[in-house]
């Protein structure tokens, strides 16, 4: 059905694909797996015509289509659903679906026919969405269904999905699998890009593994195991997160001194009432409190309010007993608050700054003598941290932009956990997002080491496996509220799923 062979693609000096290949049979769900930076997305963008390969051959239905455009691809029934939604929030679902493929009657849009067609598509696929509502009013899961509808509306028979579950709760993921299976059974072909092994095992029929831009193997899902796939992805044995659950009863949280104490915290936003709504919890010395929840339920705002990046409209934040609710970011840092921000490209790093400069970001006032930067100390500091955290390439004069995601995150972690000041409380927001399996291992080790050293860690992650693997207690956020706090040792995805969907505690039992 689809055959890509020996694809090469580079962006400037960066090789994204070198000798990648892919074979997808008709009517199968094919998982394309690999670490971040393995070249999966690039390969699929080449297949969907977003850009041409430097060399290599693309065949669809036995026809050589190398170098085609997105328009060609769509005309031949190959469509891609991107990680980032490309929807117009002020238009309705139907308007978004028809955008770019409008049905007209004379000069006018034929809204009735469009509405009818979209409804029919919804019926056929089971992708249930309120078609007359504006996209801005939809949940993330619904918006994703609109993206899929949009692609199908243009006649796609081959559907490429790029990391579709990153923004979904467990029940929404199950719903997505159901839809994908139905599409397959109706004759569709699906390529699923992912790096989550449980998803691969749950839904795919066959698997292609990529590493460093090349294809390293093709497997039948029924004949393989997560361990084998992980080994192929990384090139060596790795400890999977689910292997290392926090030992029950090991947490010293009971009776230990709370280092971070959040009381009745409220963050109002201009649009909706409260993005963080009366949230209270505390994190003790030597404890990791994990915050689970579907993205967009107030986790970002909660972390930013604690970090001092967002105005808290109500409530208090205590840092080791000191009220810091109105304190500046710098003052909180000086009091021992470290923060691994969820978006290292936006916040955590100045991408044009060198590694040495990034390693003092937020601590620049500690590397200053009479107003001037103390370059000797900054360089020594950078050398020390780069060596200690094995940052590659080990060149402090490179801009942060030049590093891989994992190494960029090491810079942030080095600065926040071993930088120019000591810390007592660590806010870790999506600490392993977009980093490879090896770096995930390392980062988890760092978080455990912080706990062992008596620090209080607040961990927010969209990856439920990660939250469950690391946390002594798990708080679930939904609609800006903490709807449950449960002990980490006994928590499970099945138990937390209903909370993440906003189903009340009674119904969850």
């Amino acid at each position, binding site marked *: 059905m689809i055959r890509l062979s020996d694809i090469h*693609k*580079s*962006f*400037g*000096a*960066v*090789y*994204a694909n070198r000798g990648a290949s892919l074979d997808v049979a008709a009517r199968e769900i094919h998982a394309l797996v690999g670490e*971040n*930076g*393995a*070249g*999966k*997305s*690039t390969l699929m963008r080449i297949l969907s015509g977003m850009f041409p390969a430097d060399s290599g051959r693309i065949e669809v239905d036995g026809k050589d289509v190398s170098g085609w455009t997105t328009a060609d691809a769509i005309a031949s029934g190959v469509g891609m659903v991107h*990680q*980032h939604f490309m929807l117009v929030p002020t238009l309705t679902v139907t308007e978004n679906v028809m955008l770019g493929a409008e049905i007209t009657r004379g000069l006018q849009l034929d809204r009735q026919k469009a509405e009818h067609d979209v409804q029919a598509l919804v019926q056929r696929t089971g992708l249930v969405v309120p078609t007359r509502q504006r996209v801005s009013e939809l949940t993330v899961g619904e918006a994703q269904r609109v993206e899929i509808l949009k692609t199908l509306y243009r006649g796609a028979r081959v559907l490429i999905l790029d*990391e579709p579950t*990153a923004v979904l709760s467990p029940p929404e993921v199950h719903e997505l699998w159901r839809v994908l299976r139905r599409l397959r059974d109706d004759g569709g072909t699906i390529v699923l890009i992912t790096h989550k092994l449980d998803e691969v095992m749950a839904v795919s029929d066959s698997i292609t593994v990529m590493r460093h831009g090349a294809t390293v193997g093709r497997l039948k899902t029924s004949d393989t195991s997560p361990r084998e796939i992980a080994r192929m992805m990384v090139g060596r044995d790795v400890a999977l997160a689910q292997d290392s659950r926090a030992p029950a009863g090991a947490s010293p949280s009971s009776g230990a001194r709370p280092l971070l104490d959040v009381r009745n915290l409220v963050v109002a936003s201009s649009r909706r009432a409260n993005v963080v709504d009366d949230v209270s919890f505390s994190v003790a010395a030597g404890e990791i409190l994990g915050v689970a929840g579907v993205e967009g339920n107030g986790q970002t705002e909660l972390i930013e309010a604690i*970090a001092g*990046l967002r105005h808290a409209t109500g409530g208090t934040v205590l840092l080791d007993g000191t009220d810091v609710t109105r304190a*500046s*970011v*710098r003052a909180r*840092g000086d009091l021992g608050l470290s*923060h691994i*921000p969820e*978006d290292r*490209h*936006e*916040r*955590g*790093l*100045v*991408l*044009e*700054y060198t590694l040495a*400069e990034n390693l003092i*970001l*937020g601590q*620049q*006032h500690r*590397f*200053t003598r009479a*107003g*001037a*930067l103390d*370059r000797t100390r900054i360089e020594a500091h950078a050398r020390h941290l780069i060596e200690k955290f094995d940052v*590659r*390439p080990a060149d402090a*004069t490179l801009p942060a*932009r*030049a*590093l*891989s*995601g994992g190494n960029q995150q090491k810079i942030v972690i080095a600065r926040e956990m071993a930088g120019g000041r000591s810390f007592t409380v660590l806010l870790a927001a999506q600490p392993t*997002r*977009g980093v490879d399996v090896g770096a995930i291992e390392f980062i988890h080790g760092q978080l455990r080491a912080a706990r062992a050293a008596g620090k209080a860690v607040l961990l927010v992650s969209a990856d439920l496996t990660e939250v469950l693997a690391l946390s002594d207690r798990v708080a679930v956020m939904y609609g800006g509220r903490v709807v449950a706090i449960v002990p980490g040792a006994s928590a499970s995805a099945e138990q937390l799923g209903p909370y993440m969907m906003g189903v009340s505690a009674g119904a969850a039992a």
Partner: protein
Amino acid sequence: MTRAKLEEALLPPVVALLVALLVGDILILSFGQSPGAVYWQLLEGTWGNAYGFGQVLYKATTLTCTGLAVGLALRAGLFNIGAEGQLAAGGFAAALVGIALPAGIPSLVVLPLYVVASSLAGGIVGGIPGVLKARFGAHEVITTIMLNFVVLALLNYLISTRFKVHDTLHTAELKSGAVPRLSDVFPAFHGSAANAIVLLIAVVVVAAWWFLFRTRAGFELRAVGLQPEAAEYGGVSVGGVWWKAMALSGAIAGIGGLNYVLGYKRYYEEGFAAGAGFLGIAVALVGRNHPFGVVIAAILFATLSQGGLAVNALVPKQMVDVLQAVVIISMATAVPEVRRALASLRSREPGAGSREIAAVPETQP
């Protein structure tokens, strides 16, 4: 600075200049003149004799100030279109000091007063849009443009009423504080406006470089310009940097007013700043917002401007205005284009690909 960075900084202006020369060739030919003769005349009239060189130096001094002002604001992510008004305000404040203080005060005392007055006036005019942006989110492009009208109209009103000197459009002459002309030291420069303010501006350039790249405040300012969210995360008050950067930018433009008012005419005259503020935007662009780059760009534009007068007999001097515009347009086009070309060139160098750099393809989940 690494070789790669230097290449990336220097190549676009060179390419832009070559394109401008090519366009100039066509223009000159269309006037029935020989490009070689015209360009020779242009160089001869600027760098070929002491007077021409002095004029280039003088014009470059003012352009350096406005270019530096625009460039410094851009480093903080702000587009200061108001250098024109800030320059005029600085010049007028210097004239006020010169009129108010009696003659005979030692230069050592009065010269610092001129510097303070002109930078303060420019700083206030620049700082107002900064504060409006930091406090209310008003866009600095709009506010600086509008403030130009306000400031220039106000100054014109003042010199035609309160500070009127009969039959002129300028204020009375400064009474104190002598600044030597270049021709006082080297008689060959006779008639040119070049004066010792150029030394003051040289100090300002070096100070600006040191501030931007060697101090904590400069570190924070550039972080705000590159990534305001990251700067905020790094404990920097973004609004604070905004208004301070605008005030500093205005102050530098204001000091530029000294070149004309104190160093050359010794009075404030309506329209002395005309065009210098806006040309500062081009100077900052070609100079890549780097203080030393700004100096080079200012000399380039000063040469073109003075050269226009030198070739006036052969071709209309507006031809040079066209050349300036072509330099700016080519520059704006060349920066991304040259970067792309350099990147693809480097990727073809042996061994370039083996370096572990993985920033582009995979987007973040």
